[in-house]
C-alpha cells in the first residue's frame, strides 16, 4: 500500500453516469443556481452599491470615508457593540444557570420551565420592547424601579434583547450540559474533588464549545436585531436601525449599503468562530459516554427551583403585560378590557389582511422552504462525485447565517429592483417575501436536514441502485418517511420565523403584501402602541397554535411509526 508509482496499463477508467447521477447533479446545479440568485448576487449588488454615488458611478471607498467622518453615523458602531456585549454577558449567564438547573438538578417541573423559557421564540422581537414600555415607559406601572433612568435607550434595548435571545442560548447550553459523561464525574468524586473544583475543572471545560457557541449566537442575534432598538431605542442609534433610517428615512441607499457592509463584518466574524467551534464539538463527543444523572440535593434543588421560577415569572410577566396591554381600552386612563385594539382595520398598517398575508407567507415559506432545503441537503449529502459543486452548494447553504436580515433585505432591493434584472417582476410581490424569508432562515434548516440525513444508512442508495430502483423513488418511499420528524421540525421552524421576522421583510413588502410583524412596527411608529401590542399578541397566539399542532402531529406520527422506529 505505497504511494510509489505503479505501472499502469491503459488509460484511466471513464465512469459512465447513471440516470440517477444525472438527476442528482441536475438538482445540485439547480439548488446552486437558486443560492446564487438568492444570496450571492444580491450581496454582490449590495457591495457594489456601497461603492457608488447616487447616479451609479463607481467612486471607490468614498462613501466609507464619509461614513467614518460622520460621528452621528459611526458612533452607532460603538453603541451596537456595547449593547451586544452587555446583552451577551447577561443572557449567557442567566441562560447558563437556567440550563444548569434543567440538566444538573433534580428540581420539580423541568419540562414546564423549559417550555416557558422557549416561549419568547414564538413572539416577534417587538413584543418585549412594547411590554417594557408599559412597565417602565413614561406612564409605566413600575417605572420607579429604573431610578429615574429612561427605558428608551440602552437599558430598554438590553432588557429586550435578553428576553429575545434567552431561549437560543438556553437550547445550546442544555444540549452541551446534557452530553456530559458521568464517568468523569464519578472519577472526580472518587478523587474527593470539591464540588467547586469539579465545576471549574470538569463542568466548564466540558461545555466549553457550547458556551462559546452560545456567546457568538447571542452576540450575532443582538447586533443584527432591528425590532427592539427600533421600538425602544429612543435616540440611541445602533447599526441595524441606521440602515433603516438611511433607506426609509433619507432614501440614501448608498449609505444604507455602507452601514450594511459595516454590520456584515462582526456578523461574519462571529459566524466563522461559531463554525470552527461547531466542528470541534462534533469531534469531542465520544461514543462510549455514559449520560450524567444528577442526584437529589434539597438545598441545591431548592435554590435552582427558586431561580427558574423567578426567570419564568419574568418571562410570563412580559408576555402577560403585552396581552394585558392589548386588551386595555385606553392606557392608563381607562383600564376596562375589550378587543377594540384588535380592530386593525381602523389603523395604519394594512389591518387584518396583513395578518392573513403573514399566515400565507409563513405557510408558503414552510412548504416551499422545506422542499427546497430538504431536497438540496439530500442531493448534497448523497450524490456521488461532483465534489466541487457539492462543496459550493454546502458553502452557500451555510452563508445566509452570516447575513443580517436587514442586510439581506436591502441587498434584495438592489438586486431584484434593478431595472435590468429579468426577475424584477417579483419585486413587491408575495414571492419575494417568501424567497427572502427562506433564504434568511436557510442555514439552520439545512443543518437540521443534514443531521437527519447523516443518520441514514449510506448504503440505501447503493442497494436501490443494485435493485435498479431510481433514486427519486427511494427518496420518496424511504428517505422522506424516515426523516419526517426532521422535516416537520424544519417546516415549523420556517413557519414561526416567517411569522415573527421583521428585519428581512421590512424593505420588501408592498401595500398589498403588508405583514403582521411589519404592521405592528408601523402602528407603533404612528403612536398606536396598544394595537401594535395586539398584533404582536395575535402573532404569538398563531405561532403558539401552530406549535401545539406540531407537537400533536409529532406525537401522532410517533405512535404510527413506533413499530419500525428503533428506540
Amino acid at each position, binding site marked *: 500500500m505505497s504511494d510509489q508509482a505503479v505501472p499502469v496499463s*491503459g488509460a484511466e477508467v471513464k465512469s459512465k453516469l447513471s440516470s440517477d447521477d444525472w438527476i442528482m447533479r441536475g438538482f445540485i446545479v439547480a439548488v446552486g443556481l437558486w443560492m446564487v440568485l438568492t444570496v450571492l448576487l444580491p450581496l454582490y449588488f449590495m457591495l457594489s452599491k456601497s461603492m457608488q454615488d447616487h447616479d451609479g458611478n463607481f467612486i471607490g471607498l468614498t462613501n466609507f470615508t464619509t461614513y467614518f467622518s460622520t460621528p452621528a453615523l459611526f458612533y452607532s458602531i460603538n453603541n451596537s457593540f456595547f449593547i451586544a456585549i452587555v446583552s451577551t454577558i447577561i443572557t449567557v449567564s442567566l441562560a447558563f444557570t437556567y440550563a444548569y438547573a434543567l440538566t444538573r438538578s433534580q428540581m420539580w417541573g423541568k419540562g414546564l420551565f423549559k417550555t416557558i423559557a422557549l416561549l419568547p421564540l414564538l413572539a416577534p422581537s417587538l413584543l418585549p420592547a412594547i411590554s417594557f414600555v408599559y412597565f417602565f415607559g413614561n406612564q409605566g406601572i413600575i417605572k420607579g424601579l429604573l431610578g429615574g433612568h429612561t427605558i428608551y435607550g440602552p437599558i430598554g434595548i438590553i432588557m429586550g434583547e435578553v428576553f429575545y435571545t434567552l431561549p437560543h442560548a438556553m437550547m445550546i447550553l442544555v444540549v452541551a450540559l446534557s452530553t456530559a459523561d458521568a464517568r468523569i464525574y464519578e472519577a472526580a468524586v472518587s478523587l474527593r474533588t470539591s464540588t467547586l473544583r469539579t465545576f471549574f475543572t470538569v463542568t466548564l471545560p466540558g461545555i466549553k464549545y457550547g458556551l462559546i457557541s452560545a456567546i457568538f449566537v447571542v452576540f450575532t442575534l443582538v447586533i443584527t436585531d432591528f425590532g427592539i432598538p427600533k421600538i425602544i431605542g429612543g435616540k440611541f442609534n445602533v447599526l441595524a436601525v441606521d440602515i433603516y433610517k438611511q433607506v426609509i428615512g433619507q432614501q440614501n441607499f448608498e449609505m444604507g449599503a455602507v452601514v450594511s457592509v459595516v454590520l456584515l463584518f462582526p456578523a461574519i466574524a462571529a459566524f466563522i468562530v461559531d463554525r470552527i467551534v461547531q466542528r470541534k464539538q462534533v469531534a469531542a463527543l465520544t461514543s462510549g459516554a455514559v449520560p450524567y444523572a444528577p442526584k437529589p440535593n434539597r438545598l441545591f434543588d431548592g435554590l435552582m427551583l427558586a431561580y427558574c421560577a423567578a426567570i419564568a415569572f419574568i418571562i410570563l410577566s412580559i408576555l402577560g403585560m403585552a396581552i394585558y396591554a392589548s386588551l386595555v381600552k385606553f392606557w392608563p386612563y381607562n383600564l376596562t378590557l375589550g378587543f377594540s385594539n384588535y380592530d386593525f382595520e381602523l389603523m395604519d398598517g394594512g389591518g387584518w389582511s396583513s395578518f392573513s398575508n403573514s399566515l400565507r407567507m409563513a405557510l408558503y415559506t414552510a412548504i416551499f422552504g422545506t422542499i427546497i432545503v430538504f431536497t438540496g441537503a439530500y442531493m448534497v449529502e448523497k450524490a456521488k462525485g461532483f465534489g466541487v459543486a457539492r462543496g459550493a452548494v454546502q458553502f452557500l447553504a451555510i452563508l445566509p447565517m452570516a447575513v443580517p436580515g436587514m442586510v439581506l433585505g436591502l441587498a434584495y432591493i438592489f438586486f431584484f429592483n434593478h431595472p435590468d434584472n429579468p426577475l424584477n417582476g417579483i419585486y413587491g410581490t408575495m414571492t419575494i417575501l417568501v424567497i427572502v424569508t427562506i433564504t434568511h432562515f436557510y442555514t439552520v434548516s439545512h443543518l437540521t436536514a443534514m443531521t437527519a440525513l447523516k443518520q441514514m444508512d449510506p448504503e440505501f442508495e447503493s442497494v436501490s441502485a443494485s435493485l435498479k430502483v431510481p433514486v427519486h423513488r427511494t427518496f420518496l418511499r424511504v428517505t422522506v418517511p424516515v426523516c419526517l420528524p426532521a422535516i416537520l421540525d424544519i417546516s415549523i421552524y420556517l413557519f414561526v420565523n416567517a411569522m415573527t421576522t421583521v428585519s428581512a421583510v421590512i424593505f420588501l413588502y408592498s401595500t398589498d403584501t403588508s405583514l403582521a410583524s411589519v404592521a405592528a412596527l408601523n402602528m407603533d411608529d404612528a403612536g398606536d402602541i396598544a394595537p401594535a401590542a395586539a398584533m404582536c399578541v395575535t402573532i404569538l397566539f398563531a405561532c403558539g397554535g401552530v406549535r401545539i399542532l406540531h407537537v400533536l402531529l409529532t406525537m401522532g406520527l410517533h405512535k404510527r411509526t413506533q413499530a419500525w422506529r428503533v428506540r
Partner: protein
Amino acid sequence: MTSNQTAQPYLKIEHLTKRFGSFTALNDVSLDISEGEFVCFLGPSGCGKTTLLRAIAGLDIQTFGTLLQGGRDISGLPAAERDFGIVFQSYALFPNLNVEKNVSYGLVNKKTPRAQIKTRVAELLELVGLPDQGRKYPAQLSGGQQQRVALARALATSPGLLLLDEPLSALDAKVRTYLRHEIKHLQRRLGVTTIMVTHDQEEALTMADRIVLINEGVIEQVGSPTQMYREPRTLFVADFIGAMNQLPCQITSDRAVKIGNLEIACRTHELPIGSNGVLTIRPEDIVPRGLGGEGQNGRPDTAAAGASIDVTVGEMEFLGSFWRAELSGASLAGNKLEADVSINAVQRMDLAPGKNITIELPVERVTVFAKPAAL
C-alpha cells in the same frame, strides 16, 4: 473442488488499480471467477477487500483496469446498469418498510404483476427460512433474521452475481456459525456466483470454493481452502491462515536449513544458500516421538522422517479437542515451538509441563520462506 477452470470466466478482473488521491488502495489486481463459484476475499482490516467489492459493484469505480461480467465490459458502468445483488454489513434494510416490502423493493420497479410479486416474495422468504415474518418491520427482527431478509432482497431480482460485504460480522458467534452453513447451502442450491468479503479466516475456510487473500492492496495468493492452508506461497499467507510456528534460520542447502547448530531438512526451495530465512511448521504437524508407528493425524511415520529434536514441554493449554504445548530446548537456540497434541496422545505419553520428549519435524511439512526485510 474448484469449478471448471478452462471455461470462460464469468467475471474477469484485469489489472485493476484503485487510488484515493495519492493513496493506492488496490494495486494491479487481476482475477478470474467462474460461474457458480463461491469466492471469499480475505485479508486484514484496511487491505482493500471492500474497495475491490465496490469496484465490482460499480459503487466506487476503479481508477484503472477492466472488468468483464459474462463477456460484457462493465468497467465504467454505474451500479444501476450492472447485474448484481448486494448485502452490506449493516444490512441497509429500509426501516419503514416491512419485510415483504423490503424483499419486493426491486420487483415492484420491474412492473411485475402483483400476484407474481406475492408468490416470489413468499418463495424467497421460504428460501431464507422466514416464511411467516413478512409483516414485521426490520426493527422487530433479530440480527440474524435481518441478515436473511437482506439476503432475500438481494436475491429477489435473480442477479447473476451476489456480493456480500462481511454479512456475518455483526452477529454473535453461534448465529454466525449457523448462517455460514445456511448461506453456503443456499448458494449451492441457486448456483449463483458469489463473492463474500470477510476478515475472518475461519469463515473463508469453511465457506469458500476459492479464497483470494489480499494484503495491502495486492493479491497474495488465490486458491482452494486446502491449498491456502497446505501450500501457502508467502510467509504472509502462512501466517494469516491458521496457526503457524515461525523460526528464524539460515539457509544451508536447497533442502535444509540451520537453527543454531541444528540442521533441519525441509521442502525444496530456491532461496540463496547462506541467506536468512524463516522456517514454518503448523503446530499439528509436529510429531512427538514415541507414539508408535503413527503420527497423531494418522500420517504414516515413514513419510515424516525429518529432523529429531529434544525438547522440554512448557505450558500446556487445553483447547477442547486437543492440547497446545509450548516446547523449548537447547537445540532450538532460544526459540519456542507450539505443538498440538491429541488428548489421547497426551494420556498415552503422560505429557505434562517439565517433561523431556523428542519431536520430529516431517520434511514435507517444513516450509521455508525468505526473511522479510522489515523483521
